[in-house]
């Protein structure tokens, strides 16, 4: 009876006790699950997250290959995707969804299976649970809302800002961070009101905000509502300078508005790839445009940097999830957006910037950088 040659070779290796582990097969790239919401209400941001991860993995096809699964919007969908990804064999890490509720559902599983999650979720709680397997590459509220408030108070010299925020978990946590930051900076919030993401007409809330005679209008809204609010404000008289949340940095949000409507509008963000500023960043932006026929945003860049750090871990010899986790927890990674290092809780990103539109086009300019929370 003849056996195929590879069966004989396999038997020989096994008999010799030399059969390598799945991670140690240098010739075979490891699987890297990319679990992201590409459908549902977070599809815009989730698509950016996916694209960032894919662009990073494209640079090292010999090291890792992506396995993309859509997690949509339900926590159980993310859990199922995670289980499916791990059931197919060991993985060194998982690119995990940016949706906070999905991350909260995945955290216990990641701890149980000892697999690091690399994400750009902004939800504060995910790094506040003492879970050593989560790594967030997008600055959290503590960083960006501090920058948001500092720009309003220190650069615009505003002392009575009005705050309009979304009534979602994202909006509430941002509102709380803004309130604390304004208090620390000695500013008095002249008006604040929450608005549901389903609201179409922002003129009522803007009219009320203007009655309080604020000297700056601070928005902390999702992408569509941000554009709705800015369009409504552009048609009203007496509106002070607007400093919006990170949704305004997204090219897709700016595309909804005319350049004239954007004049003088600023926004906070972790980064703004289309604003350029460094040759490497500009080259990356062009590569992104060529690959996805779209402009990149900060989520794409952050996930790119996070995935590149995982690849750096693999290049350094880390193979098991535990080794990759240790690398992420202890190393410093110089990414395109910023330099990343864990604060001990898995928060890797600590810089923020403020961008502003001049009304001539839809490309914002960087107005202020807040590096490592200083300035």
């Amino acid at each position, binding site marked *: 009876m003849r056996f195929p040659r590879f069966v004989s070779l396999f038997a020989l290796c096994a008999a010799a006790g030399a059969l390598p582990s799945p991670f140690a097969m240098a010739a075979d790239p490891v699987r890297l699950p990319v679990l992201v919401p*590409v*459908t*549902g*209400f*977070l*599809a*815009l941001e*989730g*698509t950016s997250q996916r694209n960032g991860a894919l662009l990073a993995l494209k640079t090292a096809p010999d090291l890792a290959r992506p396995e993309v699964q859509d997690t949509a919007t339900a926590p159980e969908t993310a859990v199922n995707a995670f289980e499916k990804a791990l059931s197919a064999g060991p993985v060194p890490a998982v690119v995990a969804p940016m949706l906070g509720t999905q991350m909260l559902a995945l955290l216990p599983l990641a701890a149980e299976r000892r697999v690091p999650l690399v994400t750009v979720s902004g939800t504060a709680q995910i790094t506040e649970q003492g879970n050593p397997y989560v790594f967030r590459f997008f600055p959290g509220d503590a960083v960006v809302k501090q920058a948001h408030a500092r720009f309003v108070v220190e650069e615009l010299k505003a002392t009575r800002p009005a705050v309009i925020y979304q*009534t979602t978990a994202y909006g509430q946590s941002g509102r709380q961070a803004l309130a604390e930051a304004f208090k620390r900076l000695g500013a008095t919030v002249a008006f604040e*009101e*929450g*608005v*549901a993401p*389903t*609201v*179409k*007409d922002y*003129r*009522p*809330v*803007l*009219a*009320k905000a*203007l009655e309080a005679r604020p000297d700056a209008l601070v928005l902390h809204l999702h*992408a*569509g509502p941000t*554009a*709705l609010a800015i*369009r409504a404000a552009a*048609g*009203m008289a007496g509106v002070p300078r607007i400093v919006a949340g990170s949704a305004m940095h*997204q090219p*897709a*949000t700016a*595309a*909804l508005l005319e350049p004239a409507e954007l004049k003088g509008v600023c926004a906070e963000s972790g980064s703004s790839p289309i604003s350029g500023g460094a040759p490497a960043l500009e080259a990356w932006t062009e590569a992104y445009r060529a690959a996805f026929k*779209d402009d990149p945003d900060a989520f794409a860049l952050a996930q790119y940097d996070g995935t590149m750090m995982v690849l750096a871990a693999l290049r350094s010899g880390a193979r098991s999830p535990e080794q990759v986790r240790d690398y992420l927890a202890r190393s410093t990674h110089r990414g395109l957006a910023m330099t990343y290092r864990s604060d001990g809780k898995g928060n890797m990103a600590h810089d923020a910037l403020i961008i502003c539109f001049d009304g001539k086009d839809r490309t914002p300019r960087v107005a202020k950088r807040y590096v490592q929370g200083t300035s």
Partner: protein
Amino acid sequence: MTLLQLGVDGVALGAAYALVAAGFVLALNASRAVNFAHGDMVMAGGFLAVVLAGLMKLPGIVLLPFAVALMALAGVLLAAVAYLPLRRQPVVAVFVSTIAAGIMLQNAATAWFGAAPRAGPSLVGGGVVALGPFALGRQALAVIAVAAGAYVGLHLLLARTQLGRRLRAAAQDPAMAAALGIPVTAMTLVAFALSAALAGIAGLLLSNSFFVTPTEGGNLMLKAYIAATIGGWGRLNGAALGALLIGLFETVAATLVSQVAAEALLYAALLLILLLRPQGLFGEIAGSRA
């Protein structure tokens, strides 16, 4: 900004919602089941407007007939796929099939257009119209005019034409209508076409000022449902009035109190109406409520 200006904005929003609600009621009366894909048809109408504006570079008012015609065809397709094969099954089968159709529309829109919001064409351009001390939005005034025209047209079609009489007869008693020689299936298809055409108009009207995203159908569906409940299940005029009330709550009441309180007040008003007048303001005519 005065209450009058906000009132005009509220009426414009409510007028667009009224078309959504009218389309919802037309399909409801024709099929005796809730068409859960109706909100997604409005969304589809919005994206169609974006596509047409990109292709033709014309103002929304010129694109409107194209949007109406194409959406009417989409309505016939929806009825053929999600309603007619199941019309002799329990009504829940139609719910499920329209829910499935809505999700398919949503995912198709995400796949084709991406998840980002898109802005549709304005009807006659932006800017304001000065009326004495008041500056009223040109788009808001145009939305009110187009919605009113569409609603009057629908009313005349249903009340003054033979087709309208046949549509009403087929909706009220399909068996009797069939016995009298009215082609009930064809009338159902016409009702779905009209319903989708109204969704298309509403989608175009809403897509400029309020953008369009693949996932907004559910929210519009909820508004249509509430409007129909307030006005009386199956009542066209009642649903339109209910929709206008929703629009005014979202603008005027939100200015007087807050957005969150206005929404709470809207649902409180809904509960009060259901308590005092469970059949809605104009009474029910549809056979069953779902």
